[in-house]
């Protein structure tokens, strides 16, 4: 099971943090900080895997990938495969890239909720849901389409809108 997804920039600021097992806010900060400390001390041409049992407890692994100014980090347990998780990061980033056309850190920050939407289509409750970025994109676009549609509806006076959705 995947336990957490984080996106941290190279200065250590969290850009996205999603924990599939609840963590209190302070604990989240602590985890992000310790992950960043380890990541920032790693050289360029080393493996993408990290031994994080000291941070996340027994039976945890971490895979990360460094893109421009961002670290994409997945934390998971032994029921997942490290190399496959590395590709899942790739899927995530590819999808974001397709969503935003040359994704950069700014997109990630500003479209916080969209990022969550994309992630929710890839990972569901800690399990891999979809690995094809085109499929993910389709789902996300459909949501966006329906949301715009319902936005239009919400312009209708409130009483009417609630009547329509019944």
């Amino acid at each position, binding site marked *: 099971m995947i336990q957490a997804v984080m996106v941290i920039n190279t200065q250590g*600021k969290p850009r996205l943090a999603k924990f599939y097992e609840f963590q209190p806010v302070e604990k989240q900060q602590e985890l992000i900080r310790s992950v960043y400390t380890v990541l920032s001390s790693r050289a360029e041409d*080393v493996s993408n895997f990290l031994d994080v049992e000291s941070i996340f407890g027994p039976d945890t692994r971490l895979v990360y990938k460094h893109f421009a100014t961002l670290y994409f980090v997945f934390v998971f347990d032994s029921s997942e495969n490290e190399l496959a998780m590395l590709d899942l990061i790739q899927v995530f980033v590819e999808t974001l890239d397709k969503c935003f056309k040359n994704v950069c850190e*700014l997109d990630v920050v*500003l*479209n*916080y909720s969209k990022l969550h939407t994309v992630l929710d289509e890839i990972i569901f409750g800690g399990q891999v849901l979809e690995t094809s970025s085109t499929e993910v994109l389709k789902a996300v676009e459909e949501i966006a389409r329906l949301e715009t549609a319902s*936005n239009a509806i919400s312009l209708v006076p409130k009483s009417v809108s609630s009547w329509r959705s019944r």
Partner: protein
Amino acid sequence: MEQLKTIGRELAMGSQGGFGQSKEFLDLVKSIGEARSKAEEERIVLHEIETLKRRLAEPDIPKRKMKEYLIRLVYVEMLGHDASFAYIHAVKMTHDDNLVLKRTGYLAVSLFLNDDHDLIILIVNTIQKDLKSDNYLVVCTALNAVCKLINDETVPAVLPQVVELLAHQKEAVRKKAIMALHRFYQKSPSSVLHLVSNFRKRLCDNDPGVMGATLCPLFDLITIDVNTYKDLVVSFVSILRQVAERRLPKTYDYHQLPAPFIQIRLLKILAMLGSGDKQASEKMYTVVSDIFKKCDSTSNIGNAVLYECICCVSAIHPNPKLLDQAAQVISRFLKSDSHNLKYMGIDALGRLIKISPEIAEQHQLAVIDCLEDPDDTLKRKTFELLYKMTKSSNVEVIVDRMISYMISINDNHYKTYIASRCVELAEQFAPSNQWFIQTMNKVFEHAGDLVNVKVAHNLMKLIAEGFGEDDDTADSQLRSSAVESYLRIIGEPKLPSVFLQVICWVLGEYGTADGKYSASYITGKLCDVAEAYSNDETVKAYAVTAIKKIYAFEISAGRKVEMLPECQSLVEELSASHSTDLQQRAYELQAVIGIDAHAIESIMPSDASCEDVEIDKNLSFLDGYVQQAIEKGAQPYISENERTGMLNINNFRNQDQPEALSHSLRFEAYELPKPLVPSRVPPAAVASSTELVPVPEPYYARETHQTASLPSVSDAGSSELKLRLDGVQKKWGRPTYSSSASLTSTSSSHKTTNGVTQVDGVGTSNSKGRDTYDSRKPSVEISPEKQKLASSLFGGSSRTEKRASSGNHKVSKAAEKSHVGKAAGAHSDTVVEKINREPTPDLLDFSDLAVTSTAPSVDPFQQLEGLLDQTEATSTMNNGAAGASRTPEIMGLYADSAVSGLSSSVANRDEFNLSSELSNAARTSQVGVSQLNKGPNPKDSLEKDALVRQMGVNPTSQNPNLFKDLLG
């Protein structure tokens, strides 16, 4: 420019619909991004929180604004600030009918709230409603929230709806419903146990995505109980085959690979189902082998699938062909430049060596490279591997490496971990007690505060008990060496407390035992310790007791004791200590000094720490005294039971506490309700227990099965592995197994014959390994230290005869390739490769025969002779080579030709070509006869074999005598 870009983005986002953000949010992000210090960021965020609090308190907030505020709050909380004041607004937003708002509400709630938060109860109703919605996106959103927000108490509220959704027309919904059920199962297994059959049903879903999703819960279920799912093996295998044969729609391809994530999941499941189950495993062989062949090894995901194949192969009942394929993939991983692949390779190697230990030897240099890699992750993985392959022959090198790594790192968690590993290995494989003590000293010195106190006690015990044999001189040598090493170490600053305790104890017990050091010298040292670590009471206590012992031994030896002045002051200081323990020890010390030798001998006998102290629990020595007292009219002692019984009798009327009494009447009366007690257990537990009751049989079956299969699932020293394989062989009733397992590394059969003929113990195989390296130095650039390390790790890694030879063979083969090779080398290599590619069933049988080493159908000695000739050919071919380097080559050649002999068509050629020179070989061996018994030179041994055969001696028993004297 930056601003332009921002504006551009803003515009673009506006057109994207619901994802647009307001100017305020952009400003917030920007100002946080530009914050120069943590404090400034803090200030901005706090200011933002204030603003939001104020805004939220305003009446009639437009919904779009509210959504915006929530997004900002989520952002603020991600930065580590509490946003709990807004949770209720998030909850309210989930009630909204507008999809955008609802989604935002759910997002915020699932990020904010834990599943036991008080507000959850307000959402459950909304979730129930949304799960029934016509709009599948609303359903998906609700399902998403369900995973995060529902706990075991609220599961029953939404369970019926989620189960209904399993039959939803949209596959996306079915998929998510399955996963939500899986999540319920993770959170509270008992609540969904009755629904487990749904997972099986959904395995046959029309949509491959839904089927793939079902694998996740099934994986969890199978992890817990393998046996109930054995019937699914066939289905899983056929699904895997279909996936691998690209029967799925193209949309499931990922990087040209058909549904790799489903493949990985299936392989993981098969690994569990096939573990220790030969029948099940046999069904998997073909499909796994196909995946090995088909998988694209250039892409990352392809390698992920291949790695999973290796994991599967190493978990299921071994199959030589698959093991061979796995070994090939591993060697490709290890040779790769990518650190990731090396990491996977090391991990896979660690799995495979449990089954075929000899495979590690081919990769020794790769492993050492990984060990010296700057990448910590890789290094640690390699230590893991080394830990798995530690034997008494290589324990010194491995533990040494571990300790030096341990010293170099600061990460306390890993330091503790590797220290405990060192201790474990040292305790298990220590070649000598001396080495053990030195190793422990190092571990204590550098990680003393991190290791378990038990380890210290074990060390003291070992020093006290010695070897456990009746060898007193060795024991006292051990002790005096320990004392000496501790006296050397004791002066170093900042030693860990646990280590000091050991030091004090040993010095007190044995400091003066061998008469080398005077009592005043030792006590002086101990006083120094007590003074230097004056705030550590445990150390002080150990030190003062040690001083007491020293003085006691002095007195009982009849020598006069003079207390050192510093010791005197220490005792004075301690007898006024706040700690009563220290006080007592100080007074004891003073008392001991005051009494005579005879008394001391009975209270402090020398070297008696291991003696059992007899304790008279009945205090029988007091009987006379008690008798006297009773005669004088004292009350007899009433035992505690009787006394409490009296108490209960006193409370007889108090009916509230009836159960604790020992009054016989009442006790009987309350005995009856007891069997009913389990019914008071909460319903959840009842469910699980009833679940267990109907299926005792499979449970039992699994138990027995595990014991039966235990031998094949090896986990530790490979010296035992051989034993285990034997066990399995008997269990399965077919003799092919152990041999077939060892076939994998291209060198199985010859290795055994070879091993029996030339094995000569660890030391020599070591030296040979080095020789080979030397010979190869000019052609391959590998530093001598590395080679040495390799040989000490791997060359000597084989205590059992079989492996010793195979190790040498590997080395020599490599050497051959690199610089001797040419004709003979190339030839034998191709032979090996050929066999690699097509391991025929014949091969199995031959190898099996070779294992037992009774005269097989292909006469091994004929090959031997062939070898000898070939050797001569090689040596003439390469005059310049040193004699030392030739030795291993011979073995390499021999080994190779032995392999080739197995596939007889190829081997025949060797024999025809070379057997003519047989007599020649025999002659040379006759010359060397006198030396044969002395040296374990493999060439000599081979020659001797030839000679023996000429004389018409045929080996009949499993371990013929002629082999035996070569072993000596």
